[in-house]
């Protein structure tokens, strides 16, 4: 072991109460920093799951203006070939995507994309007695669509079943029309096609618009209603990194020639709210670390004064400037390290304890507080405290290195 380390360790130990208090100070800073980060992170993650969670992160739609021979089409083996008649548009016909199966298969293989759900959606009406309500048909492949908006876990009545002539509807629509389970309801699409569905389930996704308008049926039925047999009109996707959505959308748009959407562009206000939260989170944590830095620095300045005799002796033995500085910088490092570990224990325990309090909040069901323990924030807090410890020790260390041995030996 280097002697600078062993001297630093001895000073640390002989510091007693002084060392303990400094470590406690750092711990409190780190604990608060972790707590705030996990609270804000928890709220945010909850909001994201709630708001973005039931929406597609990226989606592809037909582009009205796309020239017929541009873009690419993917065959099942993943090779790209020219897009031909992918997007068709004629006078009264809705824009649509043909040849979508190979495209879906290709997207399935894209490592940045986690879920791919082809859908056929379009406007229509529900007719019950003399009531007519506008709705949006959502034709989906359930196993795929469920990974985007998990309706199965949000059913308030019945089951999620859109096979055959079955459908599921939102609570608001059910309320509006007085629909109950197993009711048969007549629907008509904008194209004039009529179909009768049996209501198998009623869902609540927490967003009024969807609860009132979305009418889930099988992809086949939607295609029939919307005169899209063999076609779809959107591909909805989830991605691995939600903040990469713009990049992924742009990439897919360029490669497929389709119009691409990203949640980040569609939910601008939500996104800027999230960014404001991130900003205040960063600000709070920065100030916590500044406080930690001043704490460590001031204790080390005192320590340099206390140890000035010994520094003088070490210098008389020919200790290098670097060695003297190291002794104090190692103390800063140790304070930061031990303090951050103790602080992590505090912070995580506090988060954990609060997470055990039962109750309900907007974003995390079953918990009173919307806290989530996020390892990245913990690692960040530890690294920050260690770096801050070392940086804060530089000034006191230089002071120690500059001490005049004659002065301290003469006057002790």
């Amino acid at each position, binding site marked *: *072991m*280097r*002697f600078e380390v*062993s*001297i630093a360790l*001895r*000073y640390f*130990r*002989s510091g007693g109460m002084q060392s303990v208090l400094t470590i406690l100070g750092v711990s409190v800073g780190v604990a608060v920093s972790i707590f705030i980060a996990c609270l804000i992170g928890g709220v945010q993650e909850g909001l994201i799951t709630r708001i973005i969670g039931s929406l597609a992160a990226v989606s592809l739609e037909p582009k009205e203006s796309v020239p017929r021979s541009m873009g690419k089409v993917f065959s099942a083996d993943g090779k790209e070939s020219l897009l031909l008649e992918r997007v068709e548009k004629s006078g009264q016909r809705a824009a649509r995507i043909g040849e979508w199966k190979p495209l879906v298969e290709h997207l399935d293989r894209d490592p940045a994309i986690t879920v791919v759900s082809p859908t056929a959606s379009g406007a229509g009406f529900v007719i019950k007695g003399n009531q007519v309500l506008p709705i949006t048909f959502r034709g989906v492949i359930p196993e795929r669509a469920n990974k985007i908006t998990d309706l199965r876990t949000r059913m308030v009545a019945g089951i999620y079943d859109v096979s055959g002539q079955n459908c599921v509807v939102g609570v608001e629509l059910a309320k509006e029309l007085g629909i109950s389970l197993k009711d048969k309801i007549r629907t008509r699409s904008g194209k004039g096609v009529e179909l009768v569905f049996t209501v198998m389930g009623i869902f609540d996704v927490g967003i009024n618009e969807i609860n009132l308008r979305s009418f889930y049926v099988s992809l086949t039925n939607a295609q029939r209603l919307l005169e899209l047999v063999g076609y779809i009109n959107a591909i909805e996707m989830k991605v691995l990194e939600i903040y990469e959505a713009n990049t992924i959308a742009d990439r897919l748009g360029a490669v497929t020639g389709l119009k691409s959407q990203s949640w980040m562009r569609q939910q601008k206000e939500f996104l800027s709210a999230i960014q404001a939260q991130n900003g205040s989170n960063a600000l709070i944590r920065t100030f916590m670390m500044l406080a930690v830095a001043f704490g460590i620095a001031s204790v080390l300045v005192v320590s340099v004064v206390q140890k000035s*005799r*010994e520094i*003088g*002796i*070490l*210098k*008389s*033995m*020919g*200790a*290098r*400037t670097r*060695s003297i500085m190291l002794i104090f910088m190692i103390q800063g490092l140790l304070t930061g390290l031990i303090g951050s570990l103790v602080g992590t224990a505090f912070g995580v325990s506090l988060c954990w304890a609060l997470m055990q309090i039962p109750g309900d909040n907007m974003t995390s069901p079953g918990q009173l507080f919307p806290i989530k323990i996020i390892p990245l924030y913990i690692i960040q807090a530890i690294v920050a405290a260690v770096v801050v410890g070392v940086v804060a020790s530089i000034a006191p260390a230089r002071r120690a290195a500059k001490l005049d*041995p*004659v002065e301290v*030996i*003469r006057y*002790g």
Partner: protein
Amino acid sequence: MADTPIVQMEKVGKVYGTKIQTRVLTDVTFTVQQGEFAAIIGPSGSGKSTLLNLIGALDKPTEGAVKIGGETLSGLDDEGLARLRRRYLGFIFQFHYLLPDFTALENVLMPFSVAHGAPTRQERKEAIELLERVGLKDRMNNRATDISGGQQQRVAIARALAGRKPLVLADEPTGNLDTENSNEVFALMRDFNLKDGTTFLIVTHDPNLAERTDRIISVIDGRIAHDVPVAHPK
């Protein structure tokens, strides 16, 4: 080796302060040969400690040249001076200044650690031998603050000698000790001088101790007043 004096002082002067200037040393010239055992005496404030600090490369002269082992100190930067101290110099101070958080043995090993990190096994052996010679082998694992003042000063002697330093500078090493301990510390220094050829420069107020050295340099008002050998009746 014997040709180059270990210490050469050539017209050395020292002035403290810039605005209010205090002249502390004037025209100090003398040489010390390897193996000498000399006392520096003089009234309080005459400049003895200043002189010793200049020789110890802890302070810089205002005029003249200080040479240690033939090397001129004014030509060296801070790291050069530190290197020179590691190579040539051991210090013993009045207030024995051991590192209180370390054991006696660790204190004696400190010059090795400072020089190159962890001490070798050979160096450990040397340190234990030194502690044995100052009669403290059985106390070597005691904390420096857990032994008596006289014992601490003996540890300081062992520390000054660790690494076979050719020159030991002692500033009132017995100033804080009773007669018995003073005699013992003095005898130890003499022993190292005779057996190992270590050069000692000892600042002292005690005329009896000064008489037992081989040479007395007396400083009055920052000048060398006398520089005389001591005749020892055989």
